[in-house]
């Protein structure tokens, strides 16, 4: 199986950060040591050293190698990110000021992102007004929602539970409150939800909400609460609510 995107991002991150820490320690240690050893008190007469070509070459070539390694590792991770598995389930993501809505292949729409566990999911991301960015922090990936374009990425849901999506491109007054709940549930439950209940009534609103907070849901709070609830019970409540609606 292919490596998981989130794991790969974390690995790359720590590889680069680790190398950086080592470099930083070397530089800082050398600096402090020199400051101490060659302070005016201990070393009153400076020596006249104007440079050294071979050492310049050394500290040019080694960093070149280091950054090239970093580049290739991150490139490999990136390739994996862009290369969507063939059987991935497609979810259309639409951003607007200031909410997300999701559309499934059977035209079902929803404000909450319900997904089956252990599936590859491809998001096709668009926007109806200004730029947003569809960010799934726990999955380590985001891509902007640009009006007039469709961007994409994919993830693999390998764990049941509650997650969230945030907006990561500044989009005005309620940018900070543009969350969506994300629930990953067992395949069969998901199928029930997707196929047996009518499309959510909260489809994309066409009004331009540039300056009003009125009527905007406090999605931040919703997400906060959802993350507090243990994953499994939350799943069932979500389904139940939908049942009742019907």
């Amino acid at each position, binding site marked *: 199986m292919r490596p998981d995107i989130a794991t790969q991002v974390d690995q790359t991150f720590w590889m680069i950060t680790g190398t950086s820490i080592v470099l930083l320690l070397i530089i800082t240690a050398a600096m402090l040591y020199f400051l101490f050893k060659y302070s005016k008190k201990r070393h009153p007469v400076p020596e*006249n050293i104007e440079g050294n070509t071979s050492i310049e070459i050394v500290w040019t070539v080694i960093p070149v190698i280091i950054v090239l390694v970093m580049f290739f590792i991150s490139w490999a991770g990136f390739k994996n990110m862009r290369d969507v598995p063939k059987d991935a389930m497609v979810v259309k993501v639409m951003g607007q000021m200031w909410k997300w809505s999701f559309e499934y292949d059977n035209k079902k729409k929803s404000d909450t992102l319900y997904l089956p566990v252990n599936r590859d999911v491809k998001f096709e991301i668009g926007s109806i007004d200004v730029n947003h960015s569809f960010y799934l922090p726990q999955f380590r990936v985001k891509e902007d929602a640009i009006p007039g374009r469709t961007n994409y990425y994919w993830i693999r849901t390998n764990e049941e539970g509650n997650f969230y999506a945030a907006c990561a491109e500044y989009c005005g007054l309620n940018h900070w409150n543009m969350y969506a709940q994300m629930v990953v549930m067992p395949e069969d439950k998901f199928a029930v939800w997707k196929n047996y209940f009518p499309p959510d009534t909260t489809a994309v609103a066409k009004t331009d909400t540039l300056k009003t907070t009125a009527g905007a849901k406090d999605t931040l709070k919703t997400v906060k609460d959802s993350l507090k609830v243990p994953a499994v019970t939350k799943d069932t409540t979500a389904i139940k609510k939908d049942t009742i609606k019907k």
Partner: protein
Amino acid sequence: MANGTIAAHGTAEVDFYHVKSKHKGLLAWLLTTDHKRIGIMYLSCMTVFFLTAMTFGVLMRLEMLTPGMTIMTAQTYNSLFTLHGVIMIFLFIIPGIPAVFGNFFLPIQIGAMDVQFPRLNLLSWYLYIIGGGLAIFSLFGGGGWVDTGWTFYVPYSVRTTTNVSLSVFAAFVLGFSSILTGLNFITTIHRLRCPGMTFFRMPLFIWSIYATSWIQVLATPVIGITLVLIILERAFGIGVFDPTLGGDPILYQHLFWIYSHPAVYIMILPAMGVVSEIIPTFARKPIFGYVPIAISSLAIALVGYLVWGHHMFSSGISDTSRVIFSLLTFIVALPSGIKVFNWVATLYKGSIVMSAPMLYAMLFIFIFSIGGLTGLVLGALNTDLHVTDTYYVVAHFHYVMFGGMGIIFFASVHYWFPKMFGKMYNEKMAKVAAIIIGVGFNVLYFPMFIMGYMGMPRRYYDYLPEFQIYHLISTVGSWILVSGILIMIANLLSGLRNGSKASSNPWEGTTLEWTVPSPPPLLNFDKIPTVDHGPYEHPEIARRKEEESK
């Protein structure tokens, strides 16, 4: 090195503050074409803007102290980070070192009487003031405070009803000020070097200003036209960026970053130049690797043009271009690395005096390295998609901007304070302030790396509970930083009032500005100096060299 004219000065000449002028009082300043006076005028105005923007920053931190509303509404918060960013970038950090210290010391360091175009220089200052005034004025206009973020991304910047046009126009005017300064400096460096001052005998500060000026001249117009397009778009709906008319919002981002990435090197290169002055002065030895440092400035300026796409990795630009921009981003890190290594190597076998400017310079190396190295995480393709537009980026750029240029701005003020004002500050207090600033800085910004990695998006008025502890630490850090900065400012002001008189060369510096009296006389030199060796030849070393050759 300037023919030992030191003694001859001092007595015979009046410093530039006290020279009689055609005009009286304030007019003597507002109509001056003296590069030193213009430098001082920039310094005083810039301090005001800087403190304003800093206060905004502290207010933002206060808001983030607790979840939910703490002291302001979301709309206010959005305007505050916009204004904070705009003022910091366009009014402080881009003009910063070149306009203040470049103006004051560039002519002196190359042995000239003034810049090539003194009147144009004054015009630059007026444009700066007009731009700053417009930015302030935009706060009082009809629509309310601009709320787009300093990046002015379309379509939002075209749709919002706040005073975008006026703020954008302010940035446009400031751009012209920057262009004219750059143009002036390039010509000055080419035309007014004193006899014997070859390119490779110029102080490294001049090299860095030279590279910076080229970026100013060749990159700034691009943002000029981009900002004009926003205004036209708002006023007439011409539509070149409007997706509903067939425009491409991503092209706006290209044009914006074609300037704004090189601009980050406008910010940092002069700071690097100052570091290359301070270290040899206080290590009492020539800089290690003069030529590599000089050339790496030019390399940064050039390669800096090739990497703007790394700000757009998540915007949906093509995969090919992402790969290319990422590779180039990694390459642009190399010349900075070369500089850092050479600075550290300069310390080797020196005879180091740990004065306040030197302390700031060491702080810079540490902080800037952190900022730069985290830039690598941002330049990497897959990790950037996670941390872009989170507090990780906020931490990165405060480390490089504030920790890089900001800290060195403080260092420069201390380093050149005796020369500019002819007075000494209290050395001990200066060091105390530097240490508090160093601590406060890291407490303020380091938690942002952690938050960013955990997924806290930037430009957020409110946040999930898991981030609270980091926001709390960060806000406390801002208070530590504020106290450090207040001590620093108080110390400098008291030095200005009651400091002891500074000699012409209190640090035993070797560049030309240390050969003239403090403060310098109107025409800098009473006889244009002649130079016959490199900029960092310490007299003691020169003497020893001579003895050896005998």
